């Protein structure tokens, strides 16, 4: 399946039979409380039963993931960042060596092709920080093949997202 996570409305996207679109800004997603229950108490399952548990399993199982997000301090802004934090059940507590560094073992997470349309960066420095952040985060989410498109505005982000989905359809 393909998954689109966005923090702004995307209205012009072509519909796909195996495509799920989630506007995270419209979901009730509380911040992670750092209880580690998803590792030690209820492995693979978050104890906070809001909208996040209906989304993070799809982040794990999708083949292609498109993220459309505003940036803040070189990272996803709060709605998307909260969802990424709540996706901790996709990993195990256990640590392995990956590219010579310690990282968590993944559960049933498919290696995926990730495309990010990032908007709201204030300058090149913020874009560079985001680039470095995504490179690290990709190691922890099995999304090591990723592409970033920086958009100057939300409207441009929407247009770029449409093009990405168009290429998926072709």
């Amino acid at each position, binding site marked *: 399946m393909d998954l689109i996570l966005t923090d702004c409305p995307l209205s012009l996207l072509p519909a796909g039979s195996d495509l799920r679109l989630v506007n995270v800004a419209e979901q009730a997603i509380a*911040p*992670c*409380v*750092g*209880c*580690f229950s998803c*590792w*030690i*108490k209820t*492995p*693979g*399952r978050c104890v906070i039963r809001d909208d996040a*548990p209906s989304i*993070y*399993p799809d982040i*794990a*199982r999708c083949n292609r993931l498109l993220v459309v997000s505003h940036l*803040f*301090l*070189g*990272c996803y802004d*709060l709605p998307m*960042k*909260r969802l*990424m*934090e709540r*996706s901790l*059940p*996709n990993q*195990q*507590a*256990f*640590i*392995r*060596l990956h590219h010579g*560094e*310690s*990282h968590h*073992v993944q*559960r*049933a*997470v498919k290696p995926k092709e990730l495309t990010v349309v990032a908007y709201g960066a*204030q300058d090149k*420095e*913020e874009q560079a*920080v985001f680039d*470095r*952040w995504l490179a*690290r*985060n990709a190691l*922890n989410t099995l999304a090591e093949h990723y592409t970033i498109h920086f958009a100057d505005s939300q409207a441009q982000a929407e247009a770029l997202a449409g093009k990405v989905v168009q290429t998926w359809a072709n």
Partner: protein
Amino acid sequence: MGKLMIINGSPRAPKSNSKQYIQAFLSAWSGSYEQYSVLQRQHTACLEQLRECSDLLLVFPLYTDGLPSGLMEFLKAMLEQPTAPLTVHVIINCGFREPHQNDVAIDMIRLFCKRGGHKLGSVLRMGCGEAFPTTPFMGMARRKIQKLARSIQKGRSVQLSITMPLTKGLFLRAANRYWLSRGAQFGNSQTQMATMDIEGP
């Protein structure tokens, strides 16, 4: 220097390792200070107190390779209600062995300083940050944190790192043993904790 504001940016502040690292910091700190946890969610009142401060110390864990969202929310509030220029110091810890896994999060704080007209001061990057307080290595961590405190007190900017003196193999074994013991507290075996299922089969 003037007063120091210490911010606990951990999502589990009352039971956090960050709280223990703050206590270690205060054991070597003789200046005036205030403490605030982002979980208190009284950001406006904290921003008022920041007007009397010259320095800000952010103590937090690495979260999804970046800043915890609760701390991001606080920093956003600071940028929306600008304060006088501060010197911002950082104690960041990650559960991984390598202190450099914290570097991008420090870049984010550097960006925050630039946006808010603040200056990045001293930084302590901690690897094995999840485990230090439960091991005999906490003494090492405490001494490093105290060194940071003394440097800030003297107005000197330092860049420090610490991790446990373990090989990669020993670290993996120790970390996995630690997590197994945490799971056992809830009756979970290694097999149960290592389930590949997410939200059930």
